Structures are given as C-alpha cells and as structure tokens.
C-alpha cells in the first residue's frame, strides 16, 4: 500500500511517500494512523492529534473511520486551504 503525505504531515514525517504492508487488523484510516504512529519520532509528531488529520483513499476524500480495504493509495494530510 502506497502512503502519501502532504503539507505539515509530510514535513513532520520527513517523507513525501512510503510503501507499507499493514497487518490484517488495520481496517480503517484511523487504524492505519494508529499503526503508523510509533514508526518514527516524525510519525509520532505528525499523528499526535488525529482530529487535525484528513485522508483520501485511492484519491477519494473519506472520513477517518472509512475502511481502507484493498486500497492502493492512502493519503494523509491537514485540512485543505486552497482557493
């Protein structure tokens, strides 16, 4: 599964993307975030407050309780600020 990070999530983690293979119990985006948190100090800082995070599964915006299923690409980022 390909993970993409944007804005301060990317900066805190120090990576724009990475490939991971989460275990079977990681069913939702929230599960994925919890599973990623201990991966590095940067992940821990980026994911300290999940309420400030948004996500897209295979490029569709979803709530954090959405299932990740067989997703190829999950993106995690702050609330958007375009326009």
């Amino acid at each position, binding site marked *: 599964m390909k993970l993409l990070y944007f*804005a301060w999530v990317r900066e805190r983690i120090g990576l724009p993307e990475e490939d991971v293979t989460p275990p079977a119990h990681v069913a939702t985006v929230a599960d994925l975030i919890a599973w990623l948190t201990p991966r590095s100090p940067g992940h821990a800082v980026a994911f300290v407050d999940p309420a400030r995070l948004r996500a897209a599964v295979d490029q569709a915006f979803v709530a954090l309780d959405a299932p990740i299923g067989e997703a190829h690409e999950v993106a995690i980022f702050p*609330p958007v600020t375009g326009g």
Partner: protein
Amino acid sequence: MIRILVSREPIDPAAEMAALEQGGAVATFTGLVRADDGVATLELEHYPGATEAALTRLAEDATARWPLAAATIVHRVGPMTAGERIVFVGTCSAHRQAALEACAFLIDRLKTDAPFWKRETVGEKTRWVEARAADDDAAARWR
C-alpha cells in the same frame, strides 16, 4: 464545456474570460495573494492527480445543478508573491442567476473539497495556513 487547469504558470483571466463567453451571462471569481499582513510569498502544494479529479467533480456538480454553457477552474500551484492570482473560477449560462450562483458554489466548495495547502512566509517565518471554519460554513450552505 468544463475546463480544469492546475499549473505553476501565472493565470491569464482575459483568456479564461474570453473562452467562457458561450452564452448571455458570465460570472467570475479571482483570488489573489493578499498583500496585507506582511505576507511576502505564498507556496501552494497540491495532490497531483487527485486535485484535477476533485476540481472536475466540482465542475460536474455545478453543471448538474445549474444550466451552464461553460465552467472553468484554474488553480495555480508552486511559489507566488503578493498580488498574484491564486485561483480563477468562471461560469457561463443563458441565465444571470445561474451563472452567479454556480460561480459562488465553485469557489466556496473548492475551498473545502480540493487538496491544496498554502504555506506563507511572513518576514523570516514560514507557516502552513490554518483551515477556516468560515470556509466550512460557506461550503455547507450548498449541501
């Protein structure tokens, strides 16, 4: 006719307006980098692929809700300076109210539904712009 463009190049509103003139009423909105608050530069990051898909969906939503002859969304990415154009949205319809409402819809929803992130430099400091609750409220009135 839907036109979506995400580009590092400056936005040309004259060309965009001319292309929109396919009916009796054209409405546009242009967003500029604010020159106040001492903001010197702005950097726009986005989610390539997903951005274009989100903007296309938005324009399709607008054409489903209003009888539009044309809808355009152009968004700049990369670095820019105070006074430069960040975003241009425009609509064309035979009906004035349809063009005006659809234009407001596009910019309100773009603010919450498209994956862009602004980082601004004020003096020596760089910071990610925080999302605004007022933008969520503005987008919510179209749901």
